């Protein structure tokens, strides 16, 4: 397991230029196979680069046609589809600078909208204001109607009190008959209420 990790670290050092971790370095010094791997890995790079030219020499020559400018209509040059035009870069808005600019713009627009709504109370239109004033005037100019409403509310309360009195009087009569006692009303009810 340590061999695998150490070899991965050797490869990582080869690809990224980072130094070998201390534990991997110690292991490579102790383990013969890993030492050989590290040595071979280092010489592989130079070996492959050195042999590249010889390898390409072994590939036979062949003509590449359709390269003369006349063979491709001038109107077709640069007339490419979206996929072909893509020069292997991320979508413009995913790049840091345009993304930051978009974020700032969005925040500015959001703040503007929020402050604009918060600062202004909803105002009544002239028609609404006139209707409200008319309603207030109609209530204040009809006192009879207002008194009628109040007396109606009071009459229902009085009716309820009378019902309660009757039921108490009835209960008192029952108790007098049952217990052979006399119950009297201390203050007779006033007629006015």
């Amino acid at each position, binding site marked *: 397991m340590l061999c695998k990790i150490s070899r991965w670290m050797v*490869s990582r050092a080869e690809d990224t230029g980072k130094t070998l971790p201390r534990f991997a370095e110690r292991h490579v010094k102790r383990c013969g196979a890993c030492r050989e791997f590290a040595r071979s890995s280092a010489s592989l790079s130079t070996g492959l680069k050195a042999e590249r030219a010889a390898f390409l020499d072994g590939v036979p020559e*062949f003509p590449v046609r359709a390269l003369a400018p006349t063979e491709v209509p001038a109107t077709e040059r*640069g007339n490419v589809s979206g996929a072909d035009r893509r020069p292997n870069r991320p979508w413009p808005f995913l790049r840091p600078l345009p993304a930051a600019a978009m974020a700032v713009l969005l925040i500015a627009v959001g703040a503007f909208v929020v402050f604009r709504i918060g600062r202004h109370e909803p105002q009544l239109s002239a028609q609404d204001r006139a209707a409200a004033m008319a309603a207030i005037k109609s209530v204040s100019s009809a006192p009879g109607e207002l008194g009628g409403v109040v007396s109606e509310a009071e009459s229902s309360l009085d009716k309820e009190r009378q019902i309660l009195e009757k039921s108490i009087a009835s209960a008192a009569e029952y108790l007098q008959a049952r217990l052979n006692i006399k119950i009297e009303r201390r203050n007779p009810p006033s007629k006015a209420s």
Partner: protein
Amino acid sequence: MADHDRIGERTDEELAREARAGSGRSFEELARRYKRRLFVYLRSRVGSDQDAEDMVQDTFLKLYRNIGSYDPAYRFTTWLYTSANRLAIDSHRKKTVMTARVDVEDLGDLPEPASRMPTEAGASGLWDAARGLGESRFRVLWLRYGEDMSIEEIAAVIGRTKLAVRVLLHRARAALIERVGPGMGRVKALEPGVAGETVGK
């Protein structure tokens, strides 16, 4: 004439910029520089030399048509290999559909297409050994050591993450060391075409 002599000294990016401005000779120089390198790369992906040659032609034609969209801020090789890779993927998809329609019995005894790629371990023994590791491993080795691309550039070309590229490279190196053996100069019993573990698309 002097201009013609100097064209070979220009960088790929300079040539591509000139080609974008309409110089056919600059584009021809780019094609001359890269056709065999591209052939090596594409040959590992397609079935025959002829297919690889056709794909090289298609790649350069596509590049010429799209040269207006080339951004000189980026390396020409990355753009070239990315285009070639996309074409190879498209071609593979089309071929898969066509293969499904062909009746195998109608084919008869067709001879194996002869490969023009070097097969014997010679001066380029390491690369020959690398070819036997399988398509995806050869591709990353070629881009890394044949084209001197960074991990980021390889990831962009083959459409994988940087970590995936590093894993592929690590496995490819380990397999190549295993195959070539200690000393790195001698090639152990090569069997061209014996594919190793394929991790590619």
